[in-house]
């Protein structure tokens, strides 16, 4: 895909960056004390904090990853939205008020509030750091993905811009500036996403999607007999039924010097040939798109409806429709999704994207990405494990939990969570329309679906694209700020101040936090460059699994089981961390990254939560029962 840089987009991007930097310098006056730096003085209004929660939570994974996944896999992408939102119920009903009551700057404070235990301080700080780093990498990679179409700069420059800007934000004003950056970003993201969805509904559905005045590529269909003799003239067969391509269900044809690949579909009397897209990876690593370098623009955006039905009749366009009529028409129509196959041709590797016409009712129910139809026990286990991780992960994410310390009371903590649920729930409803809009408006870059939402905006004109892309970049800035505050708190407050017992003045604690933020910022830049090309939602799912396994059992048992001991809490975090990380490292997805076949992986599931969360609970119960003598009378865990 070729993107043209717009001066408006560049101008808006610069405005956002300068705005957040200006805000940080203004806020830096409020961060002379440790309370100011780590908890924004504890006096943020609950509504501001609630929207900032949404800003923190709606990261690159939500805005770019989920919309992209819905655009290519339909309802399965929306399952992430449903799971992520359900996690806020755990946060509201079980965690919000106790976290506010027990903690000070970090979630380690809350865990350690009754014990003053070195092992809890160490384990919780390590867990915070690991989860934050897992979460940081995809955000930084997302930044790199965004700057290419937005500013025309290479991936590493985008990562460096985010790293430097965020480190300045955090190092100048800590949680105060981070909160207001999140507030503005969260509010703008909701408003502008609503604008795009309204535009999608006004445009309605069509079998010939518009794309900012560009005609949608006419994907051709040819016909041939069983010997592959074409009824259409002018085509010469380059690779036929006996070739490697033919064995994989494709043929390569040539016409007017242009080579094309076609998907073979068995028909009553021979074959139907459907035009496909293909990427050729040469032996030296260079890539050709539909047989030509990317600059020649021969690789087309995709996403269209094959048969559009509205109120029982086949139509070519619906005109403006309401949200439910939009989904209903999609359900009754046939949508062209895109399958992917790899074919080896000598020292070249072809990645072929072929059309898969799919009933809308099938797209709007689970099963296209997650294997649930006729699934094996292990595949069902994998799906349930992922949904458990999403449900349990939210209330265990350190950068979310520290936001409870920025409000003045428990009631404010509760109310800000409700504002977050309203804002995030509304946004996740919008993601369904953003994703389905991209799926049917001919905007998807099939080689990288992360850009689906910004490219959908581009189909309405460059102004909307500029605003949405800049906001997406601000999304990354905001989430990375929150993560760096959480991680710097783990180092400066939990490790240096509490665990090592370094006696620091209030100003010294702030200085330690700022230096930690700079160090973590540098590490984040490095990791963002190293992990270029990784799917942005890939590590986020794992971050949820690790957080849910390491942190949530400890938090819940501390609150609801009076026999919980310090060693039990530390053991629970340790077992949760080791089991979740260990299972991830031997999972099929990681096996592919090691260059091995996924079927050879020691475990055959990718989501560890259904094993690691129970293990973490079990470790806490067993170790607590073994160490009951440690319980100091009168220090029993908080009861209901």
């Amino acid at each position, binding site marked *: 895909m070729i993107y043209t840089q717009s001066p408006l987009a560049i101008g808006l991007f610069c405005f956002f960056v300068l705005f957040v930097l200006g805000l940080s310098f203004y806020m830096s006056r409020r961060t002379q004390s440790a309370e100011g730096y780590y908890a924004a003085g504890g006096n943020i209004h609950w509504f501001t904090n609630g929207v900032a929660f949404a800003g923190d939570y709606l990261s690159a994974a939500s805005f770019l990853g989920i919309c992209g996944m819905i655009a290519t896999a339909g309802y399965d992408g929306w399952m992430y939205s*449903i799971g992520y939102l359900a996690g806020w119920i755990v946060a509201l009903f079980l965690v919000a*008020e106790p976290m506010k*009551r*027990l903690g000070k700057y970090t979630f380690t*404070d809350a865990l*350690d509030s009754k014990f003053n235990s070195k092992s809890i301080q160490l384990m919780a700080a390590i867990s915070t750091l690991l989860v934050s780093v897992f979460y940081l990498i995809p955000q930084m990679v997302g930044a790199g993905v965004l700057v290419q179409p937005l500013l025309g700069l290479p991936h590493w420059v985008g990562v460096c811009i985010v790293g430097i800007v965020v480190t300045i934000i955090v190092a100048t004003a800590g949680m105060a500036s981070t909160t207001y950056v999140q507030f503005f970003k969260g509010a703008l993201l909701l408003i502008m996403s609503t604008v795009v969805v309204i535009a999608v509904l006004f445009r309605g559905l069509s079998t010939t999607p518009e794309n900012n005045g560009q005609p949608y590529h006419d994907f051709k269909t040819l016909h041939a007999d069983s010997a592959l003799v074409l009824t259409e003239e002018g085509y010469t067969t380059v690779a036929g039924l006996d070739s490697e391509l033919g064995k994989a269900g494709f043929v390569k044809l040539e016409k007017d010097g242009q080579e094309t690949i076609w998907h073979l579909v068995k028909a009553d009397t021979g074959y139907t040939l459907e035009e496909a897209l293909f990427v050729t990876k040469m032996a030296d690593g260079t890539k050709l798109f539909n047989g030509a370098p990317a600059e020649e623009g021969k690789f087309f955006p995709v996403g269209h409806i094959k048969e559009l039905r509205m109120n029982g009749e086949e139509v070519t366009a619906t005109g403006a429709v309401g949200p439910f009529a939009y989904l209903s028409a999609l359900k009754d129509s046939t949508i062209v999704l895109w399958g992917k196959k790899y074919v080896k041709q000598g020292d070249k590797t072809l990645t072929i994207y072929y059309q898969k016409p799919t009933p809308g009712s099938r797209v709007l129910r689970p099963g296209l990405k997650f294997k649930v139809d006729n699934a094996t026990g292990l595949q*069902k286990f994998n799906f349930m494990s992922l949904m458990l991780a999403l*449900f349990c992960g939210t209330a265990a994410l350190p950068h979310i939990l520290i936001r409870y310390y920025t409000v003045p009371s428990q009631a404010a903590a509760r109310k800000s969570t409700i504002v977050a649920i309203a804002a995030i*729930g509304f946004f996740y409803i919008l993601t369904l329309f953003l994703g389905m809009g991209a799926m049917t408006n001919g905007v998807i870059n099939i080689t990288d679906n992360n850009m689906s939402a910004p490219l959908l905006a581009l189909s309405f004109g460059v102004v909307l694209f500029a605003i949405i892309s800049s906001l997406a970049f601000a999304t990354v800035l905001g989430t990375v700020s929150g993560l760096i505050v959480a991680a710097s708190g783990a180092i400066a407050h939990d490790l240096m101040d509490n665990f090592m017992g370094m006696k620091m003045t209030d100003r010294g604690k702030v200085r330690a936090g700022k230096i930690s933020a700079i160090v973590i910022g540098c590490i984040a830049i490095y990791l963002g460059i190293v992990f270029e090309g990784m799917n942005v939602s890939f590590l986020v799912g794992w971050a949820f699994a690790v957080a849910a396994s390491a942190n949530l059992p400890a938090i819940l048992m501390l609150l609801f089981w009076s026999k919980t001991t310090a060693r039990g809490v530390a053991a629970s975090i340790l077992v949760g961390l080791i089991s979740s990380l260990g299972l991830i490292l031997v999972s099929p997805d990681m096996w592919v990254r090691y260059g091995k076949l996924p079927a050879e992986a020691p475990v055959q599931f990718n989501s560890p939560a259904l094993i690691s969360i129970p293990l973490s609970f079990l470790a806490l119960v067993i170790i607590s029962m073994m160490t009951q003598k440690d319980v100091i009378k009168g220090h029993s865990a908080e009861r*209901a």
Partner: protein
Amino acid sequence: MGHGPAVKLGKDKAATYKTRLGVKMFIVYTLVYATFVILNTTNPKVMESIIFGQTAAVIWGFSLIVLALVMAVIYNRLCTNAEEQMNS
């Protein structure tokens, strides 16, 4: 050791009531969510059936999101009432 909240909090006599209410409401939502996940896992074709002109999966998704907000508002209302009565 720097523990305790960043701002001074008064004693909350409604804490016990709020915690019990939170647990009950958590159990209700968890059961609905678990039913959704189990249905998707064991009988995914049911999610393709049509209810009110939409697939059952879409209705379930919207319902889970709206239910979360409705339960959150009810929880807040009950907690606020309890705080006003018990802490006054």
